[in-house]
């Protein structure tokens, strides 16, 4: 071991602010990037669900224009077979 005490390690020979300022900010920003990427994944899944809902509504409107424009609430379920 090259350090004789914990305080010697953290002080980095008087350069602690510079060394830990470099390592700390790098670690923090990379952690932030990981969190943002995880959040982006949820956003992407939301976007796909919204696209699917829009497609289902379009398909309903084509099949049954009267019902879909009359404002009655109907259960819309996703049916992949109907989309293709």
């Amino acid at each position, binding site marked *: *071991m*090259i*350090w004789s005490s914990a305080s010697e*390690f953290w002080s*980095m*020979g*008087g*350069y602690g*602010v*510079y*060394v830990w*300022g*470099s*390592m700390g*900010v*790098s670690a923090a*920003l*990379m952690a932030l*990037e*990981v969190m943002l*990427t995880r959040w*982006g*994944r*949820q*956003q*992407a*899944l*939301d*976007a*796909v*669900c*919204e*696209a*699917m809902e829009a*497609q289902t509504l379009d398909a309903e409107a084509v099949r049954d224009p009267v019902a879909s424009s009359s404002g009655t609430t109907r259960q819309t379920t*996703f049916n*992949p077979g109907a*989309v*293709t």
Partner: protein
Amino acid sequence: MKLFHYAAPQHFYPLAGRLWPALAVLATALALAGLWVGFMVAPSDAQQGQAYRIIYIHVPVSWLAMIIYLAMAFWSVLGLVFNTRLSGLMTRALAPTGALLAFLSLWTGALWGKPMWGTYWVWDARLTSMLILLFLYLGYIALTSAIEDPRRSDRAGALVAVVGAVNVPIIYFSVQWWNTLHQGASVSFTQSPRMASVMLTGMLLMSLAVWLYAAAIALWRVRSLILVRESHALWVQLLPEVQAHRTLRGAT
């Protein structure tokens, strides 16, 4: 051909999903090993004392900031020549990580410059060309997010990535071409390294860790980009994670 097979987002999506967790685990292991060697094994520097330890993060992020831009240029050339759909998505996925690492290069460099040169910043060729690299990343991100149409956006971005790549060799050779305050290369292709092997080991372990981190996060990010870009495609809508997310949304 296998390569062109994976150039289709539909085939690349599951591949990226298998790769990124493995790369993330490897990156973490290498970072821990690199930090151990750099902070627990390597001795202090004869000239710089303990301040030199900034090298274990400064050099890896600086190298990767340059390499990621070259990777973006590489994908862009593929996109412009072969018109592959994945190219624009991969270029896009790499940009935020490249921008982050370019910023960290400047940040850690400033914190190293202060105790060693007496200043956080100087308009020196190496520092200035690195700042330009950060602006190229930010410019790429701003341009591609400003253009709605994905194809036009990809092409405009690809041009920025290819033209801007000229800056990378300028950064790399700046310390030879101009008389700068920044020191010369610690490790070069032509000479044996001018540093103790234990320090070099720590630096290379950290570089490999940052490299794998960048690869992992770009592959993770490209999966989200693929989902959004292909959200109208049946293969996306039938993915188990999409179905699960849909059920979750319906429940709340």
